[in-house]
């Protein structure tokens, strides 16, 4: 399931709902990305309504197919977030451990470079756009070689 929302969410409540009532699951892997503190006062994420949701659903489907998952979950916020707040939750349910962990890594690499979001950070020094680094692109490309 792919969800994009402005409202804060509780990753643990979402994970509990995601895993509830499943049969034969052996592995649940998950990742929560949070707004780091330090200099950051706020993080702003723009999205492209409609397109963003569809691209995330496409990334999820790719993960489910590639790793033989029982299910995948991505919840991604847009709008303004404060330090400590969750930005993104990615989770994978599988029969076994390795596919579940690999799938979460894959989901995050693809979300980083392929999901239509634009990230701006506000600190005391002002507001700056954050764009993907070469390392982000390399991580995404490594999956294409396998």
């Amino acid at each position, binding site marked *: 399931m792919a969800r994009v929302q402005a409202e804060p969410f509780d990753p643990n409540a979402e994970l509990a709902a995601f895993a509830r009532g499943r049969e034969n699951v052996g592995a649940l892997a998950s990742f929560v*990305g949070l707004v780091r503190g330090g200099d950051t006062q706020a993080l702003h*994420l*723009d999205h*492209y309504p*409609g*397109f963003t949701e*569809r691209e995330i659903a496409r990334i999820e489907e790719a993960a489910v197919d590639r790793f033989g998952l029982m299910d995948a979950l991505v919840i*991604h916020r847009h709008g303004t977030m404060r330090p400590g707040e969750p*930005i*993104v939750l990615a989770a994978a349910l599988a029969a076994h451990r390795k596919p579940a962990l690999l799938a979460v890594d894959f989901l*995050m690499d693809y*979300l*980083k*470079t*392929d*999901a*239509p*979001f*634009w*990230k701006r950070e506000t600190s005391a020094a002002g507001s700056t*756009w*954050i*764009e*993907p680094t070469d390392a982000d692109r390399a991580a995404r490309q490594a999956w294409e070689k396998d």
Partner: protein
Amino acid sequence: MNILFFGRLKDIARGRTFAPPVHLRTLGELRDWLAASDDLLGDALRAKGVKIALNQEIADPSRAYSPSDEIAFMSPLSGG
């Protein structure tokens, strides 16, 4: 035609509306026409990693568009 800008490009376009001439045919021609309208916008449109979406699908600059299309110029994505 609905022209959208995202990320850094949105800041630079600053809500302006553009009325591209009717003789333009491809997304690349539209991009070049927009770039010619403003140096800052031109630099940002030619930056590494800028993508174009035609009706919410990533599209090549060689693709033709029609007046009813939704066209988005997108700065490098940064989700996750």
